[in-house]
């Protein structure tokens, strides 16, 4: 476990996506989720989005999950697109730092009884398109998720298992590799590990969500200078606790959160539809620096 930076450290984040199209795009529409989400352990002080060529219209609102979403349209013919998101955020370690929690069996019983505050977690307990439930995942997670063990200890053990048994391999999988193939091949990137861990937890009835964001670059961390993804788990009495299976850590000030949802599809940083354009190439650059 790496040591956390001091609480309330400020960072500047710049995320640039550049698209080059083989043919002219006559019309394009994009939806981006590139604005960090404010929360208990994260304050967002300044944020802006620069679109080139300029958008003919753009609207920013909170989506169903509460993430800041901007939808914009470019109506003039274009051959390239550059989207730059810049933010100033300060992050601190979460209040609940340890693994104290009720045993898994009790936690699940609590969830079934639907205590106050637990109802919203149901959304993340059921399957979603990219993070299904299944006996395959249940079996894989069974040794870690012992019914008598405190829930968060079990989750921590599952994270360690995944980190130990899976190879980080940026070329083995693509955005659309199903999580079953990830389990089979024992390799992938942060997105794959997050989906796998979520599938394992949901298959045991534990609510888990997908978190999109960035890593503060430090020696030894995997996945900085790019979009990152990790997992958040709901535990009755405690609330949501983050786990990063790619780096085998519980985020504590070194992770900057953009937003969360059921899986990648809900929080995709940038997606769009173009009319025309032919084939395209894309380059993404993420820069996180101390402010």
């Amino acid at each position, binding site marked *: 476990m790496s040591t956390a930076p001091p609480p309330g450290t400020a960072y500047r984040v710049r995320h640039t*996506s550049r*698209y080059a199209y083989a043919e002219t795009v*006559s*019309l394009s*529409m*994009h*939806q981006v989720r590139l604005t960090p989400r404010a929360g208990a352990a994260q304050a967002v002080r300044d944020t802006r989005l620069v679109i080139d060529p300029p958008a*003919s*219209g753009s*609207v920013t609102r909170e*989506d*169903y*999950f509460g993430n800041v979403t901007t*939808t914009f*349209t470019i*109506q003039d013919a274009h051959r390239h697109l550059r989207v730059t998101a810049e933010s100033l955020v300060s992050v601190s370690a979460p209040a609940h730092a340890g693994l104290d929690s009720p045993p898994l069996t009790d936690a699940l019983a609590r969830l079934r009884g*639907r205590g106050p505050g637990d*109802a919203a977690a*149901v*959304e993340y*307990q*059921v*399957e979603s*398109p990219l993070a299904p*439930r*299944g*006996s395959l995942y249940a079996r894989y997670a069974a040794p870690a998720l012992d019914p008598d063990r405190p829930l968060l200890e079990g989750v921590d053990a599952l994270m360690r298992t995944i980190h130990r048994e899976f190879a980080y391999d940026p070329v083995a999988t693509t*955005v659309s590799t199903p999580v079953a193939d990830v389990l089979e091949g024992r390799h992938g990137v942060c997105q794959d590990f997050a989906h796998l861990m979520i599938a394992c937890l949901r298959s045991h009835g534990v609510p888990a969500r997908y978190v999109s964001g960035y890593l503060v670059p430090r020696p030894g961390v995997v996945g900085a200078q790019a979009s990152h993804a990790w997992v958040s788990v709901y535990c009755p009495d405690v609330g949501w606790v983050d786990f990063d299976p790619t780096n085998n850590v519980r985020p504590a000030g070194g992770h900057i959160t953009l937003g969360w949802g059921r899986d990648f*599809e*809900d929080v*995709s*940083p*940038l*997606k*769009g*539809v*173009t*009319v*025309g*354009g032919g084939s*395209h190439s*894309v380059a*993404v650059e993420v820069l996180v620096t101390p402010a």
Partner: protein
Amino acid sequence: MTPPGYAPLAGHYDEMVGPDGALRPHWRTVTGALSAAGRHEIARRTQEARRLIRDNGMTFHVHREGGTRQRHWPLDLVPCVIDGAEWAQLEQAVTQRARLLNAVLGDLYGPRRLIAEGALPAEWLHANPAFLRGCDGLEPPGGRWLHLYAADLVRAPDGSWWVLGDRTEAPDGLGFALENRIVVNGVLPDLLVTAKARRLAATFEARKLSLAANAPGHRENPRIVVLTPGPTAENYFEHAFLARYMGYTLVEGTDLTVRNYRVYIKTLGGLEPVDLILRSQPSEACDPLEFGGGSVSGVPGLVEAVRRGTVAVANPLGSGVAQSPALMAFLPALCRRLLDAELKLPSVATWWCGDEAAREHVLDRLDELVVKPAYPRVRRERTFGRRLPEGQRDRLADRIARQPHRYVAQEQVALSTTPVRAAGGFSPRFLVIRVYALDHGDGYDVLPGGLGRVSSSTDSLDVTLSGGGSSKDVWVVGETVAPHRSLIPDSVSPIAVSRATFDLPSRIADNLYWLGRYAERAGAVVRLLRAAMPLLSEESSRRSTAALTGALSFLTDLDYVPPGAGGGDLPPARALQAALAAMLCESDRRGSLRWQVDHLRNAAWLLRDRLSADSWRIISRLQSDLRSDRSARRERGGMRRTLDQMVMILASFSGAVNEGMTRGHGWRLLDFGRRLERALQVIELLRHGLTTVAEDERARIELLLDATDSVMTYRSRYLTSLRANLLVDLLLLDDANPRGVAFQLDRLKQHVAGLPERPAPGRRSPESKLITAAVAAVELVDLDELCEVRDGGRPALAALLDRVQEDLGGLSDALTLTRDYLTHAAPVRHVAR
């Protein structure tokens, strides 16, 4: 009197006959009339109904492994009769259910109190793929979530009605119900009147007013479109039919575009705003940007436009969440809670396996229940537990235990029976009726009728049409209810006179262009075949061995006949006859008449909502004539008759188009296609007929004159003197001959000038340049030079034909490929990172 031989099944309610064996009173008129008409008369009228269905192109698609098949709509002529007093009760109950589901939808996409307070399970909602989070917080105008709601009703042995399933996404079948009525009205017109069956038309009129009132902006004459997935959709016929019946434009996703948060239709004249979209496809296929999933079939940005309130969608996006059969288990409590009333129309007993107690109950009784997916997607598989072998039932139980929330189980109902026409008279079949509630602005109208569906036998409970079932018209008779009072005020301000045809979508324009080309091409083949026929007659003065072999090689050169057709050793007359018969009868060969006509019919199918009923019937007739009676066409008399018939049918199609179509852009594009194809066909004939000098050139010239329908003109000018140069003048240079190339070029030039998007002054469009070049090439040529024979050929003629053909090819490409007229839509792509 009960028809003799009609035996209801024990343990089932029969719609026509009571438990005492007596005819139910409300059936008296219908049963009496049909019995009196007699078996043969009913059979005759059934045939008549089939012909109407075929002529109207009333079909549905069956998607099976290995492809999609188009089938004619099955309709049993015996109506299903419902008593008016009983219907009045049903109307109220269906209306209540529509209001209830409307309220449920409003909550699910709004405050979600039902979830927070536990009236509906959170798991059910959150695992429901039809719950579209992108639609959260959307409030449709007037809070109306269901403009159209449908319920599948069944009747239990005690006579009570139950709901088997709800349809809230984009309920289908309404168009078929209406078309069934139109067909039955066509063959049993008097009976419909004497039985006092309630009419359907008024409900549709009310719906039109209601939809217009719901369009944002409250324009006097809002633009409403029907959004269809396209011609391969299961119910495309219905989409096209309803669009035409209601007077709306039928569009596919690619016909629409969103600019500045407003939806526009891409028309030949430019972009025109759309006010309301009547949706015939699932919500998640409507906006690839918002709902993703790799679909590009929808309208990117539609959700944002809806959110801005610039366009309305009916039913609103996301409405499909309420058609999960799992919801039926909770409706009685929801009804008390939301409407403060008891549910009037109960559901067939339903258990959602996501609930633990319900699941145990289901697993205990798996052998008696019907299992269905809780979240039906496109297909709705059902599993009858009773019919499963032990092993499979265990596997089903296993699947349920693993993913319980994905399943519901329903009590198996002993369906009621209703009579269908059968060999000996009438025979009972199981019945399910789909009824429709249509929003009228301040509540719901229930269509006084519906879509009846019956099983293929009493051994099967399957009433689906793809499973072999049939459909029925539903008649509500007897007691009439107070006429509907519409709360929508009558329009006061007059609608401005418009002569424009601006709502012609570019895709439709493209289809019209190709329809014109296919119609002309089919005509050219028919005329050529017919021109060759006289050669087969022993009495013909034109017949010579050289003429016969010349004609055969001519057809081969034109690629109508495969090389070596008819066998090398056959005498030339037999070989030619075999080749002509093959062109008439073969279906798979490219270029055969059947192939041409199939293409023509497919092009017309894409334009179902644009062609007049007459035009469509003419084309249907063309295809069915060619498909029937194949053996007769092997011999000469039959061939001749068929060809004469087809020439007449094609001429009547031209007539229907020329006399019936407004001279707008649609007609222009269709005529553009015709003219261009006709010019190309004549060029081909001249190239293969005259650019090399044939052994028997006189016979060749006669053939060309016949094939171009120019015999009369030629004779009137030159009597019987057959000269190649005179023919070239008539077919290529003479701009007064409506069959000649010069005439077509002249028309094309006018059409190009009339295209809507004109270039800036001083600049010429590519189309204009190409047609001007072709016209000049033909005008500037000298006939004698053109027809000069060198080395057994006419090289100058060949060069000119090549040149004009190339210009026309370029013109076609310029129109359909490179310019904006017909292709506003470049391919839509997803990008993500």
